[in-house]
């Protein structure tokens, strides 16, 4: 049997993001449920979030974000041969989201699949894309995280409806080509614990998202900083040299707690949650796109990503900004 020849390494060529137009503020929520702007800001760090229109689908948002990433990559649709959509909120179980998104973007006959690792989904998808490029089973990969969590939220449950939101983020992954070019996606550190499956879940198709806030907070603030440090160690990158730390935008207090324990005081810490809410698999590429647009991080910067959430599942890797 012959095997494919892969690339020496994979790198990210571009990012893109899409957010729905409708802004929902904390005061908007406080008008219908027993909560307040002060309570939400102090517990989760969110000031406002974006919520999709009723007829706006996960695929619509994925196409919008994916199209921007593709446009920024310098590649054409014909260059993409694999499309991975990380989502835990697809419209329907079949067909998958990825094949439809690919066709709508003019990408003809790529490998296409959805990946569900909940809020860790983008980091999982990025790792599988990088590995496909290195194995030679794909040349260029469009990786998208897209979620419409609003359709799985009980809008009378003040413990969850203040947190979750909608959006999409994307990246184009391609091979390292030039002899002097460094890989731009480091080794992933990933894992899971099904024993904690009930801590964040949707129990059945007629149910909404529920989570045990204290249990998730305890896990996230104690178990994840070692994962983040290990991702740095595997990539041979000193945390003190990171330009930024972009964790899943779950809760600002979780983000700040992990960041404090990381040993990277110089790194800019993503806080996209403040105006985007928790968008699960979309949150990391959305935050990265926004930081690049604002000039907070630039070409060549080393950035640590850390996805974590339902499953329980988690994944981290160091990337280089294109």
């Amino acid at each position: 049997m012959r095997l494919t020849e892969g690339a020496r390494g994979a790198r990210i060529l571009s990012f893109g993001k899409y957010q729905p137009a409708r802004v929902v503020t904390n005061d908007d929520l406080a008008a219908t449920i027993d909560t307040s702007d002060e309570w939400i800001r102090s517990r989760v760090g969110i000031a406002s979030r974006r919520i999709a229109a009723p007829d706006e689908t996960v695929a619509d948002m994925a196409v919008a974000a994916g199209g921007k990433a593709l446009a920024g990559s310098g590649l054409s649709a014909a260059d993409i041969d694999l499309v991975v959509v990380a989502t835990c909120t697809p419209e329907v179980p079949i067909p998958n989201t990825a094949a439809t998104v690919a066709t709508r973007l003019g990408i003809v006959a790529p490998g296409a699949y959805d990946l569900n690792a909940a809020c860790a989904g983008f980091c999982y998808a990025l790792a599988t894309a990088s590995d496909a490029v290195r194995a030679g089973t794909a040349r260029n990969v469009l990786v998208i995280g897209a979620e419409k969590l609003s359709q799985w939220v009980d809008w009378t449950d003040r413990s969850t409806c203040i947190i979750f939101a909608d959006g999409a983020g994307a990246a184009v992954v391609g091979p390292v080509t030039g002899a002097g070019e460094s890989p731009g996606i480091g080794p992933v550190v990933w894992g899971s614990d099904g024993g904690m499956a009930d801590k964040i879940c949707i129990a059945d198709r007629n149910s909404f998202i529920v989570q045990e806030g204290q249990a998730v907070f305890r896990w996230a603030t104690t178990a994840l900083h070692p994962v983040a440090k290990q991702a740095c160690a595997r990539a041979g990158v000193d945390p003190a040299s990171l330009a930024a730390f972009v964790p899943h935008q779950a809760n600002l207090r979780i983000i700040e707690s992990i960041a404090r324990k990381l040993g990277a005081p110089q790194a800019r810490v993503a806080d996209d949650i403040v105006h985007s809410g928790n968008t699960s698999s979309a949150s990391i590429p959305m935050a990265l796109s926004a930081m690049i647009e604002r000039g907070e991080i630039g070409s060549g910067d080393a950035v640590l990503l850390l996805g974590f959430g339902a499953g329980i599942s988690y994944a981290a890797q160091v990337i280089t900004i294109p």
Partner: protein
Amino acid sequence: MAMTEEEILTGLGEIIDEVAGVPADEVSPDKSFVDDLDIDSLSMVEIAVAAQDKFGVEIPDDELKNLKTVQDVIDYVRRADVSA
């Protein structure tokens, strides 16, 4: 050797200062976490995690709702410490 009430109070004061920015000298046994020290449910988790590191006593999430005052935590740690 079992910890004294005074030792636990001192350690707890350091933890609460670290977690919630409340000066240690304001942490007295009669203080309520929510009403007097403005400590919410997530900070209580952080205090429980720090207490486990400092005192070697695990405080599960299910117990946190029963620990309303500083004295409640002191009592919990002493009971767990003695039975350990």
